[in-house]
């Protein structure tokens, strides 16, 4: 499974991919802290918004 992090701020956009949900959540939280609008999609097409990041964290714990 891969996790694609979509981020945007001040007309800038960024897309990064992580294979581990824990590192995806870590990256996405840092981006959010720095004022980026973020969401994550996984390779099955699921969308995770900031309100779902805890669910993504649970996934990370389950796969650890």
């Amino acid at each position: 499974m891969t996790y694609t992090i979509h981020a945007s701020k001040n007309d800038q956009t960024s897309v990064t991919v992580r294979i581990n949900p824990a590192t995806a959540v870590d990256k996405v939280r840092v981006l959010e802290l720095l004022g980026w609008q973020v969401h994550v999609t996984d390779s099955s097409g699921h969308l995770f918004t900031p309100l779902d990041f805890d669910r993504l964290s649970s996934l990370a714990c389950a796969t650890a």
Partner: protein
Amino acid sequence: MLFGWFRSKDARDRSRLIKKDREHLEARARHFLKSFLKADENGKAQFYRVVEDAVQRCQADAGVGQPSTELEDEQVARATSAEAMKILLALENNEAGSNAAFIIDAYATVAIAYHRAAGIYSEDKPMQELGTAAVHLLTMATSYTRQPPDS
């Protein structure tokens, strides 16, 4: 050779910041995060509000609060952390009232979260983990304070 000098200067800079953070912030941030974990839902809301207020003040005072800022993420994170440290030290010198320690601990947590975001702790695992927890709390606080009041 010049690249090596810059790299070692950067490493020395990070090392100096980590030492200062361990001295002034680590114990306070750990205490704040442990207290947060023990708090009930109403108590957690107080933690969210105090860290969100601290972030707003730090970014406003550091001049990095505007979304149109041209600064890089690392510069914003470093400036926010430095401002949190500055406010914390000023509050420690005038500590008064039962709530003062709680507020100072919140500033310590904010300072650590932003140094984590700036990549300062990348070579220091315990501080990196503490920073990760602090970042998590700050993002939860942002989500909480942006919720519509009736949700």
